[in-house]
């Protein structure tokens, strides 16, 4: 593991360092600023006095429910400073406008129209700063018949089409037990913001980036969409198997101490299957697979369900005799297509991630400890991403921003606090 936050690359080596974002998001949009912040952007969370309510998402540090101990908040608000500001007051709006004058990006996830009503939507912000980019993240986007629809993760995943094909055939469609919908919205918000940013730097013009969480989920099922569009065929959920055309093929297989991911494939993919069959043969367990003379001629699309199942039986029996570690390590050595089906503790112990120094330590002085976080999602050779600060406490940077930067005096800040403006 590498100690990361104490070895922050110098400012000039962070590619988005010259830019600032004001982050007004709740959990629908946290991810955007966290990733941009890791690239050096100065991301400032702007929360209502007392803190944003998404600070109460479990799990908590040592299960202590507190707005400054939410692990969800920690994870997705790294790399951000934090101030409190009540934008529903006139004084608060005035302060926000001062901040927006010098900001490059505003990220928000309020219901469509909320910021407009406060004079802080794109039209309002553009007047103050024509270069500004406003990125809005909502379940269904800014416009359209469902724009005002209420959502939560299970609803978004349902409307995005992924739930229908997920789960077991004899039970309801199921969502991933750790919520994903907002993360798709957040990551596409970062994509859209940077594309708009590139255009802005070239043209001088800002614009409004509209992110619909539903639209951000739909790419997950693109192959299935094509199957409807081109073949008028709707695939049903099939548990740990998947329908390829009319036949069902297993994808998750029990092994001696857990599960592995493996899919039997033929024709051009046999390079990744044959080495496994050879290993099985060495152990005397190839069974019916030995009847296959020419793997390249095996066409899964033409195989019958019985045929596939007889082949799959051979693999199933073999996997049951071996551990995840044995199967995965042999897959790497012999270059066949198989992956581990890990739980969180197994991910944490994965050899490849450890060798890559993927895990980083982030200081949490308020907890008198440091915590292990996932490290860089991508590695840029000159301007690396990193975690340079933990998630902010409520109003942690009020003094830095209001006093040092905007020039408010101590007295003025006290009065603003009393008036519930900050």
């Amino acid at each position, binding site marked *: 593991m590498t100690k990361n936050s104490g070895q922050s690359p110098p400012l000039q080596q962070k590619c988005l360092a010259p830019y600032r974002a004001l982050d007004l998001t709740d959990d629908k949009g946290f991810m955007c600023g966290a990733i941009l912040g890791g690239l050096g952007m100065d991301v400032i969370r702007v929360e209502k006095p007392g803190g944003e309510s998404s600070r109460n998402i479990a799990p908590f540090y040592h299960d202590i429910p507190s707005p400054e101990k939410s692990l969800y908040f920690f994870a997705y608000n790294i790399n951000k400073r934090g101030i409190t500001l009540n934008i529903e007051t006139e004084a608060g709006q005035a302060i926000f406008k001062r901040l927006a004058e010098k900001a490059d990006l505003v990220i928000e996830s309020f219901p469509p129209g909320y910021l407009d009503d406060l004079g802080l939507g794109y039209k309002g912000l553009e007047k103050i700063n024509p270069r500004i980019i406003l990125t809005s993240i909502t379940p269904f986007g800014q416009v359209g018949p469902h724009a005002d629809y209420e959502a939560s993760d299970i609803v978004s995943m349902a409307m995005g089409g992924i739930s229908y094909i997920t789960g077991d055939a004899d039970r309801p469609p199921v969502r991933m037990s750790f919520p994903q919908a907002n993360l798709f919205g957040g990551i596409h918000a970062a994509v859209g913001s940077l594309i708009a940013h590139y255009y802005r730097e070239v043209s001088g013009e800002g614009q409004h980036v509209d992110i619909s969480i539903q639209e951000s989920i739909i790419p997950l099922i693109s192959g299935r969409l094509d199957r409807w569009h081109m073949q008028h065929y709707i695939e049903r959920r099939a548990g740990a198997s998947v329908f390829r055309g009319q036949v069902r093929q297993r994808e998750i297989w029990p092994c001696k101490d857990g599960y592995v991911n493996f899919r039997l494939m033929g024709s051009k993919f046999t390079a990744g299957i044959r080495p496994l069959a050879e290993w099985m043969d060495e152990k005397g367990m190839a069974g019916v697979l030995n009847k296959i003379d020419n793997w390249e001629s095996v066409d899964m699309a033409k195989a019958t369900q019985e045929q596939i199942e007889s082949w799959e039986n051979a693999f199933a029996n073999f996997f049951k005799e071996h551990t995840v570690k044995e199967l995965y390590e042999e897959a790497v050595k012999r270059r066949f297509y198989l992956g581990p089906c890990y739980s969180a503790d197994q*991910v944490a112990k994965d050899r490849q991630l450890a060798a890559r120094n993927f895990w980083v330590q982030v200081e949490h002085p308020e907890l008198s400890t440091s915590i292990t976080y996932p490290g860089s999602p991508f590695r840029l050779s000159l301007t690396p991403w990193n975690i340079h600060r933990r998630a902010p406490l409520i109003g942690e940077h009020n003094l830095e921003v209001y006093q040092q930067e905007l020039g408010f005096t101590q007295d003025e800040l006290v009065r603003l606090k009393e008036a519930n403006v900050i």
Partner: protein
Amino acid sequence: MKEALKGIKVVEVAIADVGPFIGQYMGSFGAEVIKVESRLRPDLNRLSSPYKDGVVGLNRSGVFVYANNNKYSLALNLKHSRAKGVMQKLAKWADVIIGGYPPDTMSRLGLVYEEFKRIKPDTIVINTSGKGDSGPWANHPAWGFNLRGYGFDQLVGWPDRMPSGTAVAYTDRVSPWFGVIAVMSALDYHRRTGKGQYIDLSQVEASLHFLSPVLLDYFVNNRVQTRKGNQSCRAAPHNAYRCRGDDRWCAISIDTNGKWRRFCRVIGNPKWATDAKFETIPKRLHNSEELDKLVESWTINYTAERIMEIMQTKRIPAGIVQTTEDILDKDLHLEERNYFEVLDTQEIGTYKHRRPPPLLSKTPSSLSSAPSLGQDTEYVCTKLIGMTDDDFIELLQSGVFE
């Protein structure tokens, strides 16, 4: 029409999903993208069903068309002795090069950053791989459907059964967006400093950011989260409820007492709803199994569409568990947002594209259909990368454009 990424030149030497999606995003927003592919070793997606009319063909795959709009196709046999010269011209032209093979393959083909940098010192190169370009398992050929087991599959399904899994090659549809972010950041840095760089994108490492709190829960609380069906720790009713019709469901999520009261009213205040065991959130959570059955005794009488409509007028989160047919043909909201664009595509005819999600007010994406394999070889060579007609003909005769 203004294009956000006009003038950016991209060469894509990548197959399947991750690299091609990065190229597709950039092309959709106006970058010029040359896809380098070979008839001898076609992009895997060209060999993926569904095919037009079920007839196999390199230019008939819907999966390929979706991931490769807005690109030129240059047919190039990378193993041919003359390929290096063509590749060098491409590298000289490109601002960004997208690679998508395991590190040892890229190396064997001479497609490494050091080589590209020699040709153009400020080039930006991104290599996408399953597990990164270093480490003991870097050269293990890895596909999204094998990599989704890195934490995701075990979180999907029912607590009393083995995992159901993510149903799709999940990491293939999480990591490309991180790739676009990395490339756009590098382009910004280049614009300001004139410096290029190399980007290493590991599907697993990027995707694990979609599980950060789960990982933190393990590191900090020693807890291994697992699948729990559709349960929530703070909302009940919270599930997919069966509706009228064949395999029709509506997801409903009620996380406050206010929503609960509105819900009870809208379903006609049935007697069971007033039972003390459903009075508070903790009680509804505790009795959620029974509650779900009772809710479903109501939902089963209505269509999913009707339930979503009724709930939403009372500001209760509810949504149809949409099928592909629902999304493509019935979702009026997506239609109005111009999420779809029907394009004429060679050999397939009309194809209903979906635009990249980010909707930019001044520089929206604009889609053009995916290319047939090698359809732009001559154009790319003679009009884009600076080959003379004679040089092109000579190379053509050498057989390198296969």
